[in-house]
């Protein structure tokens, strides 16, 4: 293609900004769309760090071991060559951030310091206090600002993606988005669209995610024909402060720095993770730690005061070192609970945390529809059935770099550009989106969208998280269908055409309900236990039948599931035992 093409990145978190930078470096024109100013994206919440096997501590760590542990930690469900590429790229990724001035914690001789995280015995995690995600985000945001000043990048902050514009060959030629203040709906032409729209925590109501993590964009394109993979794999993080508005993450770094999990048994502290898993102790992977805490609280009824709570204890550690290494999380606990964790053990419980599944992409971040790419938590590619701590920031950056590269190749091979596409396709999509807004604004039923959302979230949290039973998942899916029907009869308490948040929330909820069904149906189908997906009826992993990627497709009659072989060409699957 002649004129360089035009690119749209949706989402201004780590993956979106990384994609933008790589595109701009190649001289491409990029428009970036983000609901919030990029600097406020959910990536800022990542606390603990970013993995890279640089082995500065001489422990014998290597990208190969990082790769093996990531595959093992993910219970062999990830496509192996992809993960290998990511682990090999990791050291250079951390160096890149170092060059851009990220205030990583340092060793005495001025090198980047590394700490321990779950699922490994090596010091592999680079970190900036306990707000690593925030610090990496800022570095990327600053670099994007450079390109903005140079005119290659244009930001649309405060705009929400509504859909892609597909032509008659199901090729994406741009997007339709809405200005969240003026509610102006506009079509934007683009030769390639890269979706970096994050996870779906809001489907579960209270999670560790930001309230913008609805998965709405994924739901919207799913209904347009983009496939969604491994939806059933939702990570529940073992240690969060339960809250009414959200559950606040207490980083795995706390255990990486020596924090211990316990509860009282026969009047004495019982360090159950250390007893159950002597090799890894408190640093077993997240799915395993979460199940152990569930068992202690629900089965053995040994939670603190009989409640769904256990202790996470750092009161035995050096308070000065804690401030330097974990200041950010300690501050969160102090602010939101009002107690000093350096003196009093914290009270925590597992919480929905990360979306391993996501938009289906090939080995170069391309979706099944030409012109649409995905990266970051929005895609499904790098974490298999369970993500290891400190691999998420890494996968965002690696996926973003790859997506940019692939999108450029794709655009160069195009015969016709989006600027030549018949405007009727844009007009059609604009009309469809305006009608969707009008439908909700005019609806005069009895339901309140926020109450419907709470109902959906409760069903999903109760039945489709740590312990899953087919009967209850089935009932949940029926409930989701009922809620979808009731959504057609809501009444918005706000019908204004200016900064109408109720309208936008209702539109997001419509998409959340779709992805919620994808999650539930995937969980229902998968009759085995693997990583974060655990069914007491089928407690073992079953490679013969289920070493497969779940691929969900939108069909006229509803959602169809198919299954695809996992690429296990590099490491032979073996039993996962910590």
């Amino acid at each position: 293609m002649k004129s360089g093409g035009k690119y749209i990145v949706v989402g201004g978190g780590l993956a979106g900004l990384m994609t933008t930078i790589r595109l701009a470096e190649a001289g491409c024109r990029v428009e970036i769309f983000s609901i919030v100013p990029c600097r406020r994206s959910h990536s800022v919440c990542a606390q603990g760090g970013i993995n890279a096997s640089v082995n500065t501590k001489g422990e014998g760590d290597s990208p190969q071991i990082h790769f093996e542990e990531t595959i093992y930690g993910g219970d062999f469900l990830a496509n192996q060559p992809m993960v290998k590429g990511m682990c090999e790229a990791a050291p250079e990724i951390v160096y890149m951030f170092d060059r851009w001035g990220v205030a990583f914690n340092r060793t005495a001789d001025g090198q980047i310091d590394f700490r321990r995280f779950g699922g490994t015995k090596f010091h592999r995690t680079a970190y900036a206090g306990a707000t690593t995600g925030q610090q990496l985000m800022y570095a990327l945001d600053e670099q994007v600002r450079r390109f903005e000043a140079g005119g290659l990048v244009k930001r649309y902050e405060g705009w929400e993606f509504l859909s892609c514009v597909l032509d008659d060959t199901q090729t994406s030629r741009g997007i339709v988005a809405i200005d969240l203040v003026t509610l102006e709906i506009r079509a934007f032409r683009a030769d390639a669209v890269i979706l970096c729209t994050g996870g779906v925590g809001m489907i579960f109501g209270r999670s560790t995610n930001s309230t913008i993590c609805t998965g709405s964009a994924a739901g919207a394109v799913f209904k347009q024909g983009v496939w969604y993979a491994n939806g059933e794999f939702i990570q529940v993080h073992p240690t969060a402060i339960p809250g009414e508005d959200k559950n606040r993450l207490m980083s795995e770094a706390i255990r990486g720095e020596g924090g211990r999990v316990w509860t009282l048994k026969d009047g004495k502290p019982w360090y159950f993770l250390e007893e159950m898993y002597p090799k890894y102790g408190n640093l077993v992977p997240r799915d395993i730690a979460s199940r152990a805490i569930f068992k202690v609280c629900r089965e053995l009824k040994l939670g603190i005061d009989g409640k769904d709570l256990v202790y996470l204890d750092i009161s035995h550690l050096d308070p000065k070192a804690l401030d330097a290494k974990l200041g950010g999380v300690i501050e969160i606990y102090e602010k939101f609970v009002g107690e000093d964790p350096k003196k009093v053990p914290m009270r925590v419980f597992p919480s929905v945390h990360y979306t391993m599944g996501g938009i289906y992409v090939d080995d170069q971040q391309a979706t099944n529809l030409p012109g649409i790419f995905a990266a970051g938590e929005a895609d499904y590619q790098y974490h298999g059935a369970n993500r290891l701590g400190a691999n998420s920031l890494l996968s965002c950056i690696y996926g973003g770099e790859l997506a940019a590269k692939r999108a450029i190749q794709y655009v160069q091979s195009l015969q016709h550009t989006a600027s030549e596409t018949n405007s009727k396709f844009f007009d059609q999509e604009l009309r469809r989106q305006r009608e969707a807004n009008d439908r909700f604004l005019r609806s005069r039923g009895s339901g309140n969208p926020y109450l419907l959302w709470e109902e959906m979230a409760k069903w999903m949290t109760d039945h489709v998280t740590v312990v899953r039973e087919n009967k209850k998942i089935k009932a949940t899916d029926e409930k989701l269908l009922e809620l979808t029907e009731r959504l057609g009869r809501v009444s918005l308490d706000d019908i204004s055409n200016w900064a109408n948040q109720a309208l936008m929330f209702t539109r997001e909820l419509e998409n959340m309900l779709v992805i919620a069904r994808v999650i539930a149906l995937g969980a229902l189908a998968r009759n085995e236990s693997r990583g974060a997906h655990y069914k007491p009826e089928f407690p073992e992993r079953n490679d013969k039948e289920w070493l497969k990627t779940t691929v969900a497709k939108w069909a006229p009659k509803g959602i169809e599931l198919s299954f695809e072989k996992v690429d296990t060409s590099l490491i032979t699957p073996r039993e996962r035992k910590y």
Partner: protein
Amino acid sequence: MERDIVILKVKRQQRSETKPYWEEFHLKYRPYMNVITCLQEIQKNPRTFDGRRTTPVTWEQSCLEEVCGSCSMVINGRVRQACSALVDQLGAPITLEPMTKFPVLRDLVVNRKSIFENFKGVKAWVETDETSGPGPRISPELAEKRYQLSKCMSCGCCMDACPQVNDRSDFIGPAAINQVRLFNTHPIGAELKKDRLLALMGEGGIEDCGNAQNCVKVCPKGIPLVTSIIETNRELTVGLLHLLKK
């Protein structure tokens, strides 16, 4: 403190150009409530204390753990983050108002684009042509100092509390000056030092600081903003002398 009802008074405004007005809400008290959970409660049944139907309150939020900077508003007269404003620690009634130094879009939502424009203006980034390998070695002390400065979440509280930021002045405000210090203390970032200091000269620059020191008192992240202003001002003076000598 024992209470059954939380009284919330919210300053509302339909659009940028319309007049503000107050509405009062009475909510059932629950332990561990914060301002966000109060506003969420109103979304589910938007009625004023006397049972009148109204629209849900419009506000900005995202992370709810005081790291994104979205939910800045004026709570009981003080600008801060709504997510960390715990009902138990607030006096009664609770008043919510939009920030005062940024244009109101609707209710508690304001337009804070100027913060990011200011960051762009002072070149708050590290410019490097290197494409591989680690950056320069940095002592743990410098890394720790820079980390404290780098926690700024561009929430705008410091600007809102600053008397020098107002309709009649172009003062760039403490956040951007802190960014200048952050990047000037990085070995490679320092290469743009002169550009950044020049951006702080003249009208609306660092000289407009009136030393009220409100910024450091309201910063939710405890960033030493006054020190940042003093240090940067000193650099500017030294830099100017240096230029004059040439």
